[in-house]
């Protein structure tokens, strides 16, 4: 780690220039909870570290008429303390807050969790289920892209080398909507998800599901948006048959590997279980059972 230059640009434009200047040797720093571990382990050897946190607003959460704008460098702790966001998107917040320990929550950012591009990133299935959109800055201005389009494989993203993820947009919640995220880890805390599942849905006045998105993590090279699983819920009132269909759709979508954290069989089975459980929690939240 000798001779690593640290710079702290004051604007997105400066960050992009720094990124362009550094080329292959540059790495963006938000919370640092992945980057520092990689640098220490020798898996990342940047010569320039570009800290985004001095950019105004990049670590903040804004509530607008259309919804929420969460700065890419906003920490888990900041997100967990935002009452309106917690009320509107409890599933997204609980997913973010599952990343690492209390200590990690003080640093780890939503943008970092996505751009680190781990298949097991906890916040990503929840953001995908929520239909979150990324705001990305590049040399030619801003563009927007759905979260599910960002990760392209383990450690790989669709961002260009000189692009900076600056924020996430979450829409204002429709009435009778809810979301939830569940993950399976062997311990109660501190582990990487063996499987993660998120569901976001909207009910009509009768309690019937009229919209649903289901996403699962750690069961494929990237988090998956399982459209068939969402479709299984739409039109149902969460009858056993609909839930079974949801489970089957999730299981069918899983393309996991067996590794030190889980087996193919286990991940597939439990992804379905967690998706069903998350769906029921999301339904209860939509019905206001919790509030």
């Amino acid at each position: 780690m000798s001779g690593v230059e640290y710079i702290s640009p004051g604007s997105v434009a400066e960050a992009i220039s720094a990124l362009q200047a550094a080329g292959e040797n540059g790495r963006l720093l938000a919370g640092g909870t992945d980057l520092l571990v990689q640098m220490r382990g020798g898996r990342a050897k940047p010569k320039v570290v570009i800290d985004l946190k001095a950019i105004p607003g990049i670590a903040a959460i804004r509530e607008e008429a259309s919804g929420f704008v969460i700065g890419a460098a906003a920490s888990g702790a900041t997100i967990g303390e935002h009452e309106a966001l917690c009320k509107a998107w409890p599933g997204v917040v609980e997913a973010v807050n599952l990343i690492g320990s209390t200590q990690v929550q003080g640093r780890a950012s939503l943008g970092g969790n996505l751009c680190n591009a781990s298949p097991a990133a906890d916040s990503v299935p929840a953001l995908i289920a929520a239909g979150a959109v990324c705001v990305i800055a590049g040399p030619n201005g801003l563009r927007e892209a759905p979260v599910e389009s960002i990760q392209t494989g383990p450690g790989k993203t669709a961002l260009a080398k000189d692009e900076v993820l600056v924020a996430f947009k979450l829409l204002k919640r429709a009435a009778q909507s809810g979301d939830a995220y569940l993950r399976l880890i062997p311990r109660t805390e501190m582990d990487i998800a063996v499987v993660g599942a998120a569901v976001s849905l909207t009910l009509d006045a009768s309690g019937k599901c009229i919209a649903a998105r289901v996403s699962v993590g750690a069961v494929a090279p990237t988090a998956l948006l399982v459209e068939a699983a969402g479709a299984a819920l739409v039109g149902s009132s969460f009858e056993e048959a609909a839930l079974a269909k949801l489970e089957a759709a999730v299981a069918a979508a899983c393309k996991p590997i067996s590794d030190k954290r889980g087996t193919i069989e286990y991940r597939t089975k439990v992804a379905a279980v967690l998706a069903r459980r998350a769906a029921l929690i999301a339904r209860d939240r939509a019905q206001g059972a919790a509030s």
Partner: protein
Amino acid sequence: MSRTVVNAIVNGEPVEFLGGGGQSLLDALRDELRLTGTKEGCGTGDCGACSVIVDGRLVCACLMLAPEAEGKRIETIEGLADNGHLHPLQHQFLEQAALQCGFCTPGLLMASKALLDRNPDPTETEVRYWLAGNICRCTGYDKVVRAVMDAAADLRQEEKPK
């Protein structure tokens, strides 16, 4: 070497040190400032032995770069006692024998302080989940959790108007 001057407030005192972009805050605290009370157990944010409080937030000093400390207020174990008077947490850890080897203790104390700073009356479950990032291999956590809960009670008592 790409080292820059970092100015920060550590335990209430202004400090100035050279920090590199490849150097963690933990290394800076231990090697530059010789504040060796903050321990390294893993260097990857998994054990919590290097827990410090930065601008009111609990963090692992190993997961923060030294230059990121610029302008920050940092609290370490060396600043927990107030002019030689032990913090109620320190007092309870001793009373309850909540440490055996004592290596994870500085991190546990800082994490516990951060908890009680924002939640003066935590439940046992809240204490356990808050401290899940602080691994202790000696105690099985029983006495640690009791010490934190009792220190919380002591602090609430102190806060009460007499």
